[in-house]
């Protein structure tokens, strides 16, 4: 799957979990840019992303992400179809 396509799906997951249709993610978006994105909803998003792409992240990589681009790197590294 191309990065743009992954970003599109991740954006949909964010809108769904955070219940906000106005969210527009870019690769540089961080938790500071999305009001509803806090330590609790972060975990909800991760669970939803793992379920959608049928993948499993390690704790170390989840804790190391600085922005959406790094989350997409982790998804792309797993060659999701």
């Amino acid at each position, binding site marked *: 799957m191309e990065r743009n396509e992954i970003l599109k799906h991740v954006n949909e997951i964010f809108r769904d979990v955070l219940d906000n249709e106005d969210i527009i993610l870019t690769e540089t978006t961080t938790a500071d840019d999305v009001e509803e994105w*806090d*330590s609790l909803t972060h*975990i909800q998003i991760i*669970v939803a992303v793992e379920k959608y792409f049928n993948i499993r992240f390690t704790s170390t990589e*989840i804790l190391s992400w*600085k922005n959406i681009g790094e989350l997409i790197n982790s998804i792309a590294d797993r060659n999701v179809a």
Partner: protein
Amino acid sequence: MVVNSFSFLLFFAILFALYYFAFNERTKLQNWLLLIASYVFYAFASIKAIPILAVSTIVTYYLGLRIAKYNDSNPRAASMLTTIGVCLGIGLLLYFKYLNFFISSFASFFNSVGLQCNAHNFNILLPIGISFFTFKLMSYLIEVHRRKMDATTDFVAFATFVAFFPTILSGPIDRPDKFIPQLKAKRTFDYNLAKAGFNQIVWGMFLKMCIADKLAVYNDSVLNSYSFFGGSSALFALLLYPLQMYADFAGYSDMAIGVGKLLGFKIALNFDYPFFARNIAEYWRKWHISLTSWLTDYVFIPLNIHFRNWGNWGVAISIVVTMTLIGFWHGANWTFGLFGLYHGLLFLPLVFGGVMLKRRKLKLNSWNLPEVRYLPAMLLTYVFVAIGLVLFRSDTLAEALCIFESLFGGQFGFSWCGNVIPILLLILLFHDLHKAFNFCPRISKLPFPIISSFLLLLILFLSNTSTGDFIYFHF
């Protein structure tokens, strides 16, 4: 040497003059000066603990450099060094703060099951502020390992971050990725920042000397002799205690942040009007923010990630563990642990009721104060907090239970009511007006010398002749 004392004023005046006149814009010299001043300040508080502070700083600095070096080339070694560094920090806390507690708890347990065991307590020095500076050391290593910041090669800046005198005794717990870059930047006198800092110091002094110290006289008398006073007086003191705690601790935090601003630093926020919280989750987002955010980042989130497929149960376990640790952080006593557990359990209805995930914005009125409709929820939260503080204040569980019992017995009527009423009026003013003062355009237009002079006059006329200890110095 406390911040609201004459000796500190003299100490700070000398430092301030050297900092901005002799060493202005010379960052390295300013940092050296801050480092020396911080160690002198710490020596006044706990001179025997200086080697512990110095050695733990040196070890952490070198571990940080090694972790950064191995992060890419040998991730396993980097993880191992981070674990060693974090274990050293936890080990320092366990040894200096909790060893005697563990020994006496084990001895009590063995005696209770019929095995004779004599506890021998060690005479261990408790370095003041150890709970604050070890947390700084550990967060530095974790942040470097997580690649959220580069390891600093400037030892003086690093040591100054750890020992920074306004915050070493009682916080706020600054984060290395926010504070170390400030130590590396050029610092000249900033009038607006200094003005805000001066205002904040005066405000902190007012909270401590006019509110906390006054309330302490009443609360200590009643709660230390609860069996004599009992009934409504004990209940009244119990309801006042959160305000005393707030005025004491937020007062110190304001003074520390203000002193930091006078030196050109932005220090982490520690309180955000906690009594406007509508539930316990909001309360902990507003109370001792630098500690709760530390434990959220390094305990709650990793636990929650680990239990992420357990749904609400995973969140509940992570919160209860984190809150119990927050309780024990305050001291080596089961009552502190129970205080944390009690708060953790208060989160459960919010977790299982879905309130945690749906944050409701606090709507403000034209004075920038919360709308009246939130009052019942805010009062209920306040009462829950007050109940928890009985555990916090008691030395034993039996004492806490006696205080609760005394609430429902004894004489009726308020003792020393006359002394407390003016303080209550001040409280009503200080908590609500401060928010309005900060955000309401009508009030914030007043020139700052008028507001500060008014507060200074209040301090002069209302403060006790002797200043009480800060409650959080004991942690």
